């Protein structure tokens, strides 16, 4: 090192001619906030893997029930309680069609394979599981819509108009939020007959609260900024300011919050179905399947296993994706 240092002499240095036009040049393309978020999200391996798994589950939920041509409620007691068997995978103990070392399929002289096995009424669990997944996904979709439609509008109006309107809307919200959502949901489900519709209304009624709060906060922060004033000076209406300026600027927060309301909606449906207040037989949902299988847990654990795995996977993936989106849209919140 010392020898090379000695060979560097002062006269080797000289000023660089600075070209004025160079300093005005922007190197690299300009990136919008949206593009930036997408770029950050794509590099997040966990979030991308979760997205792929969710996509797979969605596809299976759509095509899965039609694989074998059984209906959700096709009962046949002669094929009851068959363990899972997949032709090509019989070397894996979990898919060998054996239970306690006995090949149940041989014993009952059944030649068709049931991939997830059958329940105590002989219904094909593969069909029922993917049907149940459909229900969970529908509920997730509804929760998202409720969040966006009710939550954003309520919070937007409350935050933007302020004053008396805000005061009234906030007091109402405070009272609604003061009651635990579990109590809301159970009361609503008691009044209506348990089922998809009741669960939907119940989740609609409670899931938008946090979104309304967050959007209101964003509105309060944004509405006094210069670009809003500029727009108003140019004669823009309230609606235009809200939908063209304020909401697009808070879209990051809205997306993040939506992503977190999806798993909680899926959880609530499963929870309600599990305690018997949700989807009821013959319809299936992941929660009710787990409940049915739970009765047989000690003898036939596979009946709980697959619905349990799928709902856990869905919840885990939605949570990881939510974390990924939060990091992508709001790097300040990166944890």
């Amino acid at each position, binding site marked *: 090192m010392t020898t090379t240092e000695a060979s560097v002499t002062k006269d080797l240095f000289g000023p660089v001619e600075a070209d004025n036009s160079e300093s005005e040049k922007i190197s690299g393309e300009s990136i919008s906030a949206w593009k930036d978020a997408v770029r950050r999200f794509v590099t997040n391996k966990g979030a991308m893997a979760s997205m792929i798994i969710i996509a797979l589950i969605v596809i299976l939920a759509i095509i899965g029930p039609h694989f074998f041509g059984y209906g959700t409620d096709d009962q046949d007691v002669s094929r009851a309680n068959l363990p899972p068997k997949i032709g090509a995978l019989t070397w894996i103990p979990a898919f060998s069609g054996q239970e306690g070392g006995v090949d149940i399929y041989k014993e009952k002289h059944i030649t068709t394979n049931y991939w997830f096995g059958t329940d105590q009424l002989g219904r094909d669990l593969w069909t029922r599981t993917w049907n149940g997944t459909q229900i969970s996904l529908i509920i997730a979709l509804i929760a998202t819509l409720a969040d966006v439609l009710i939550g954003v509008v309520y919070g937007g109006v409350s935050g933007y108009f302020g004053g008396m309107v805000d005061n009234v809307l906030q007091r109402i919200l*405070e*009272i609604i939020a*003061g*009651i*635990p*959502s*579990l*109590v809301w949901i*159970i*009361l*609503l489900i*008691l*009044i209506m*007959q348990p089922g998809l519709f009741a669960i939907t209304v119940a989740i609609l009624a409670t899931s938008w609260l946090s979104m309304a*709060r967050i959007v209101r906060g964003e509105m309060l922060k944004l509405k006094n900024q210069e670009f809003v004033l500029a727009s108003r000076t140019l004669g823009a209406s309230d609606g235009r300011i809200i939908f063209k300026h304020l909401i697009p600027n808070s879209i990051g927060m809205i997306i993040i919050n939506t992503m977190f309301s999806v*798993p909680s909606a899926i*959880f609530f449906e*499963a*929870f309600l179905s*599990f*305690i*018997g*207040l949700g989807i009821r037989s013959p319809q299936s949902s992941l929660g009710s399947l*787990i409940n049915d299988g*739970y009765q047989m*847990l*000690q003898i036939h*654990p596979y009946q*709980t296993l697959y619905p*349990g795995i799928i*709902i*856990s996977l869905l*919840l*885990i993936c*939605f*949570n*990881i994706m939510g*974390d990924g989106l939060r990091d992508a849209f709001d790097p300040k919140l990166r*944890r």
Partner: protein
Amino acid sequence: MGRYILKRVGYMLVTFYVVITLTFLSMKMLPGTPFKFANRLTPEQLNQLKHYYGLDQPIPVQYLHYLWNMLHGDLGGSFQYGMQPVTEFLLQRFPISMELGIESMIFGTVLGIVLGIISGIYRGKFLDWGTVTLTVLFISIPSFIFAAILQYFFSVKIQLFPVIGWDSPMTHVLPVISIGVGVMASIARFMRTEMVEVLNQDYIVTAQAKGLSTVAVIYKHAIRNAMIPIVTVIGPMTAAVVTGSLVIENIFAIPGIGSQFIDAIVTNDYPMIMGTTELYAALFIVTILIVDILYGVIDPRIRVSGGKSS
């Protein structure tokens, strides 16, 4: 501060009144009758029964009657158990649920804080990665699935713990873990964020510059400050514990309010449903109130800016 507390208590009472009214109204809109063999009774018998339980009076009268009795701690009699007072049932079962809840909270909070601190200190290292993965799993997997897994492996397969019940300390282990891991995961996550933030503060650098050992910096400066906001998660946490205990009590056959509640819903036991709902709501509302006030006491910055802004 005094005014703030007064205002909060006022809101609390309004909220609670709304809960009572809503519960009452929804009970009146319920389909089905609370009588076991209603279709076998003659209309006269049915009317007699309705008269006996006060169900033949106009709804506003029933409502006022209910409110008046409630002020005296009388929640009516359970239809299902021959008019035994609901209050008695709740008082009998409440301590069990409370025990389960408190044990789960302690288990979850202590472990969560420890995990969060470790994760925050070793940010980006293997330990941190492990903790973060674990928290995502525990936040996502529903408590009843977790309970079923635990029950299957630890009670049925290796028979280490009893399958159901609530008497010896051994019976407490699995239910407490089932509810507690969710609490643990949320708190660990929150604690980690706080730790990371606090460790980046200037006063930590100052403490290090003074020559304090790493242990002293973390223990005396970082952890203490990171702990303050934990109080805020405890409120929402209670809701999660209540939801959790509802199913967990059912799974492990624990004679608390949760299993009673599910029972009451199935049998249309109106007074019992109302009583339990109100108890849950009261618990929730009071916890949030205490947390808000506590937070104001612990962190002076909030008092200055005039109450929590939410």
